[in-house]
């Protein structure tokens, strides 16, 4: 009987050793790493093993970090491939590859690699104040399409009432505003129904244009040439129920202000400035239309007209 007990004990010991072998971490078999080159090699093999696991194993065993097959030695993996029917298609994996997969599955190797990579990336010190770099801020200004709409809103009669003068104004708007994609922004393409100007300029035109001297040049020129046409003055005043013979009273000037800058507040000083211009024109012997022309010109040239 004691012989059987002894035999039983030996069998138990063999079983324990076998189980212990399965739990032996690969990391315990890796010699200590003393320099960066060796560490980088380990990192490279670890990453390669992760790629290999994802490509060859993850479809059945889940992701490399969450699989229940972690901490398997190369021998475990090889045994599985050659003994499990559904894994036999992986017989072609080389010993190097199964070694790398084993590294990727090893918890201690994972910690070692992550700690190494963290050591290369220390917590940043507080930044010195002179290194501040402010984000770009652009005032929101309208594109050429917005300006086209604005100039039509101010200076062109409703469609049913248009005259030769309105046609002249519309042509000015087209030439000086709509055709200036590069300067005034507002992209469009050759497939659009209306995309005037150069194809390259139109495609690259900014959706959020910047204020600059070129843009200001076009808008000032548009104001001067459009307001040189009498019809534009008549139209603008008519939109606020005024005519060229209307007095430049505070009330009437406020209406004109609201026409150009809807909903925006203005100061008494601004109203008085327009009134003074109008009065000065009259004092110099200018007629009604010219007096109003100069008054409207200053408002048209203001940057407020294009700021959203």
């Amino acid at each position, binding site marked *: 009987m004691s012989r059987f007990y002894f035999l039983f004990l030996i069998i138990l010991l063999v079983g324990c050793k076998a189980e212990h072998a399965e739990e032996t971490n690969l990391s315990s078999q890796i010699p200590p790493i003393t320099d960066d080159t060796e560490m980088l090699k380990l990192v490279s093999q670890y990453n390669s093993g992760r790629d*290999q696991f994802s490509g060859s194993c993850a479809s059945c065993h889940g992701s490399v970090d969450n699989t229940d097959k972690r901490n398997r030695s190369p021998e475990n993996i090889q045994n599985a491939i050659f003994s499990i029917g559904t894994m036999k298609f992986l017989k072609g994996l080389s010993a190097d590859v199964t070694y790398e997969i084993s590294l990727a599955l090893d918890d201690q190797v994972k910690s070692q690699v992550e700690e190494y990579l963290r050591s290369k990336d220390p917590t940043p010190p507080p930044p010195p104040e002179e290194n501040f770099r402010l984000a770009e801020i652009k005032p929101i200004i309208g594109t050429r399409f917005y300006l086209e709409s604005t100039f039509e809103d101010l200076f062109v009669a409703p469609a049913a009432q248009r005259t030769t003068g309105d046609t002249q104004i519309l042509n000015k708007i087209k030439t000086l505003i709509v055709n200036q994609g590069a300067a005034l922004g507002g992209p469009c393409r050759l497939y659009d129904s209306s995309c005037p100007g150069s194809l390259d300029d139109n495609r690259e035109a900014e959706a959020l244009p910047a204020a600059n001297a070129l843009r200001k040049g076009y808008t000032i020129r548009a104001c001067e040439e459009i307001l040189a046409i009498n019809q534009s003055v008549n139209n603008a005043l008519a939109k606020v129920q005024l005519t060229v013979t209307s007095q430049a009273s505070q009330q009437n000037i406020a209406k004109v202000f609201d026409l150009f800058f809807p909903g925006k507040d203005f100061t008494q000083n*601004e109203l008085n400035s327009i009134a003074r211009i109008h009065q000065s024109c009259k004092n110099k012997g200018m007629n009604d239309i010219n007096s109003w022309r100069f008054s409207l010109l200053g408002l048209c040239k203001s940057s407020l007209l294009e700021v959203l």
Partner: protein
Amino acid sequence: MKGTRMFKWLLLSLVLIVNPTLTLAEELSATALFYRCYAQITQTRPDRTSSLLAKVRNGQTNPIAACMSVLDSAQFNNNHVISNTGNSEAKNVLRTFHNLHASWFQTKQFPENFTFLQNRSTYQVHDNSVPALYITRSLFETSVPIDYIFKTTENLVANRTTNNPNSMQGVNKSEYPFPASDFRFASNGDLLGVSITGPRNWSYSYVNRNNKSFSGTVNAAANLGGGVLGSQPYLLLTVDEDATFKSDGAVEMPRKWARNFISDFLCRDLPLIRPNDGDAFIAPNSDVEFRKASSCIRCHATMDRMASTLRNLNFNAIAGQNSLTPSMGLVVAQEFPQNKGAESGWPAIEDKDYAHRPTRGTLFFRNYKGELINQPVTSVSDLGLKLSQQDDPYICLASRYYRYFTGISTNVGDIGDTSLGYSLSKGDLERRNLVIQLGLELKGHKNLRTLIQRILNLPHYQQSDFSAYSERGLAGE
């Protein structure tokens, strides 16, 4: 027009007085606020006789709600077009936002890497703003969540007033080597919505200058996966290679495509990782110099390993200068067959079979929080799916809309990367955090309309200067 020097000085003084930079920041009135948001949504002024404007002036309608109703006028119906195709206001809304979306793409012009007649045909067959259509569709078809742009397999074309023109730029269909009944030019006219096309399997036939006949069939609408990433126009715009191109894993890779979508959809420029993140890939014996230096690896570790999902890209250049009749050509992006086994790891030397191996790659970058994302992907489709699961694309979109409506740019990258050598002010940090919040909300609801409404309702949107020049921050928003 006559004037005196006195009048010019008076005018100058008036211009200086009525100058926004001298105006202190203030809260806009309801009318001014409506004019602002209306202008940004339509790039026009509102009709001064419109009942909506009257309601805003009278206080009957909130200006932001009024603007949202204008935005909604361009919503698509079940046919994927605006409901009233005669509504000029709706068309202005659609045009404004589609052009805005198109302006976000780094590459707007088809590169000219093929023969003249093939290059010309690319413009005639493909609308170069189609990549933006995916975003535009999601905005105006609220049943289409924004992650659709990375996950769909649909092929979109623009639906315009003329959808099947017989000629384009003076060229007729008969000049192409495809049957006229199959062949389609890009649509032109006012943008009305989108059309979803299936495969465009066009058979071709032409005789080359050596009197040899060529024929075959190509899918001119082939989508290689990942939604907009694998769509024909996006590939033709961004890969920027010629007909001889074939990936080899080391030297020849579709890197520009990766660089483009990093800029287009992550709002970032390379490098996207910190120094030494890529050191594991240094290969002293590599065929390519960039595998030997840490500084070079820093860009290539991200770019090349994403581009490897498109390794099997092949350009089929048909007809063109090579042909006698018909003369026009076409370039189609298609795929090499996958008939070789997978490689082990990122190759450091040229692999002549690389383009025929499984299209594995890795999504490898530091996100806005500085976390290193290191995800294997199996294809362009899988890359699109994994991108859609990250926060960064949504934060990128939020930052773009925020910039459009306020003029304020925000940094949405890895600000913990000290190698960049700069930091953000208190105000910039607060705006960055706000945009991150908007982006995460967008990831949750996936609705661009909701994002826009959120931005328009921000208190600082209603300030004349958007509080842009104030360091008092955005506390309470």
